[in-house]
């Protein structure tokens, strides 16, 4: 408390005021994000440790889970194959589906709602896309087919949202109905055409290839480096300039060393990912090379960036968080609750469409074996493991990405070990339980922290 005098009084008002006797210093110290009050990197880490000790752990559990998964599976997988570039790229591809679905579910979770329909609504959208590009039947161009699939998802989500907000039906039940209806529609869409329920993406048509390459296509290794460098430099400059501007104009901003540390971390992660992807991962004995960053990584990154900007930097996003935190406050502030919530359900289903489209690409087609129900649970699990609260008001798209990586890691590692599918379910369930427990405990810690809550 004592070290941060410049920011304690927010605008240089004469220090005539007595210290606030009413604030609970230890609770406040724990709950204020450290970057808001720290003046130096050392203070930042001290505040950070205090926060973790008080149960506000942030993304720490998910990072710890990732480390644990990596260490355990590397140690026990045959020939340490878990950390081989081939497997890591494979892991990114598998996780991408969980990540995007978790970002979709995030829209519902931040509102304090849930969407159980993401798996099958997304599957309907993906099935529409896969069907429309088939050269034997409709022959739509790839972009129109993708748009049609995603549009279907958005409309489906908007209908669910309308029922939830206008008729005030519980989201759990409406989206459960959406799950069943989606499942039915999905089977019905698959049955069209001469593919006996299995339209696939194999073939010479360019439109088929584009959809197939969403997951399996790679960017040329040199272009990968160039794009990665552009990404790091662009993001780094933006972070540095905006933080520096805030620091110079006396607004709340992290210390310069912290900004640099964050930029450095992003750079390191990017370099490592690109280096892994640029290793030749063609099977031994073949003479082709297979290297470069798979398309799916920039796609997931794009979804992450766009949804992060929408949620953190626009009025709409602010309203989503406000409704998740206190719907009554949002209503009194003149926010159009039904509109914001309906749009969130539409965005949720839309994003789910992207997720299952990536899944269709991973599978190389669509089939009625798709586990839409299971994928919903993975989506919720990934979002919660990543740090999104089930109680509404807290969560970022980044949490979905981190949680998706954890689920993908478990999935991939168990597969490498030759564990049967039942183990994968049990372990994922246990990880989800741990994540919900952390979420719930940190929330309880937070509410006992504020001494008097009116």
């Amino acid at each position: 408390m004592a070290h941060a005098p410049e920011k304690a009084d927010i605008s240089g008002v004469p220090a005539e005021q007595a210290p606030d006797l009413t604030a609970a210093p230890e609770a406040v110290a724990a709950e204020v994000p450290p970057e808001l009050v720290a003046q130096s990197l050392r203070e930042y880490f001290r505040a950070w440790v205090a926060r973790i000790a008080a149960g506000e752990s942030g993304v720490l559990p998910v990072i710890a889970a990732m480390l644990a998964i990596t260490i355990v599976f590397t140690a026990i997988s045959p020939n340490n194959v878990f950390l081989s570039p081939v497997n890591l790229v494979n892991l990114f591809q598998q996780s991408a589906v969980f990540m995007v679905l978790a970002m979709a579910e995030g829209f519902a979770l931040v509102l304090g709602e849930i969407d159980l329909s993401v798996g099958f609504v997304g599957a309907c959208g993906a099935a529409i896309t896969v069907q429309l590009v088939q050269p034997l039947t409709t022959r739509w161009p790839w972009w129109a087919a993708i748009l049609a699939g995603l549009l279907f998802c958005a409309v489906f989500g908007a209908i669910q949202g309308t029922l939830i907000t206008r008729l005030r039906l519980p989201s759990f039940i409406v989206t459960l109905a959406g799950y069943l209806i989606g499942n039915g529609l999905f089977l019905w869409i698959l049955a069209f055409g001469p593919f006996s329920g299995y339209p696939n993406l194999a073939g010479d048509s360019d439109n088929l290839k584009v959809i197939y390459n969403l997951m399996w296509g790679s960017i040329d290794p040199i272009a990968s480096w160039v794009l990665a460098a552009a990404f790091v430099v662009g993001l780094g400059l933006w972070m540095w300039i905006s933080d520096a501007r805030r620091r110079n104009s006396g607004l709340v901003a992290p210390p310069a060393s912290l900004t640099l540390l964050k930029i450095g971390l992003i750079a390191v992660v990017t370099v490592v990912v690109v280096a892994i992807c640029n290793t030749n991962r063609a099977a031994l004995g073949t003479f082709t090379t297979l290297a470069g960053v798979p398309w799916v990584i920039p796609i997931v990154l794009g979804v992450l960036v766009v949804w992060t900007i929408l949620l953190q930097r626009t009025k709409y996003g602010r309203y989503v968080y406000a409704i998740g935190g206190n719907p009554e406050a949002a209503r009194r502030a003149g926010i159009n609750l039904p509109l914001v919530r309906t749009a969130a359900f539409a965005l949720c289903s839309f994003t789910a469409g992207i997720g299952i489209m990536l899944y269709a690409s991973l599978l190389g087609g669509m089939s009625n074996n798709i586990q839409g129900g299971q994928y919903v649970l993975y989506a919720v699990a990934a979002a919660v493991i990543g740090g999104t609260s089930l109680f509404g008001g807290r969560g970022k798209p980044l949490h979905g990405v981190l949680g998706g990586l954890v689920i993908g890691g478990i999935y991939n590692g168990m597969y490498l070990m030759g564990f049967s599918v039942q183990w994968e379910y049990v372990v994922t369930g246990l990880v989800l339980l741990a994540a919900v427990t952390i979420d719930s405990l940190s929330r309880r810690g937070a509410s006992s922290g504020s001494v008097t809550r009116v």
Partner: protein
Amino acid sequence: MTAAVARESATGEPLLKIRELDKHFGPVQALYHVDLDLPYGKVTALCGDNGAGKTVLTKCIAGIYSPDHGQIYFEGHPVHIRSARDAARLGIETVYQDLALADNLDIVQNMFLGRERTSNGLLNEDSMERSAAETLASLRVTTVRSIRQPVASLSGGQRQSVAVARAVMWNSKLVIMDEPTAALGVAQTKQVLDLIKRLRDRGLAVMVISHNLTDVFEVADRIAVLYLGRLVVQDDASALDLQKVVEYMTTGGSSRTGGARTRES
């Protein structure tokens, strides 16, 4: 703020004037011929027992209910306040008892909720943070550690301060506060009462609804008492005492002299 004070001395007209206001819900007459003045630069306390009609009267001013009969004058002009937006446009802001703050948002985000500033479609956080800091500083709310901390981490008094700061940020002229000190400890109550006095010193009209008569006498310049939907007394606080106010609140009249009855009923 000085302009508001100047206008009052020039015209002598109160900021908000209510005349013969009636409101009923079905057969229940909630307000009956209520006359009330809320002058510039004064704290008016509205007292009354449970069910006396305090909340209904507040909501009529705040635009949540529309009165059946009677007229509201704002700055001397007759007005019809049909929604909270209308009230906000006139410069009437209400701080409800539950404060209506979103715990997961920070102080700046709460103060601008619903009225965010944007540039090129994105939130202009720098501009909002600067204005919020200025407003808090002008109210001498300086105990918060960081203006960017979530409201969940604030004490009760600090939360009340944020809600009040939000209300005064919009060039508001009248701030209505519903039970501002209920559920607060001693130190926090003092903090909030000081804040109310600061609003008055800026020339704002303040209406405080409270059960706590100690607080009322501590802060109010004028006191109005509702009894079963009728305004039974409205006078300078100095002309009343605790005993009399209690008597008005419980019986609708006073056995002793003093306290100009605005309306014989």
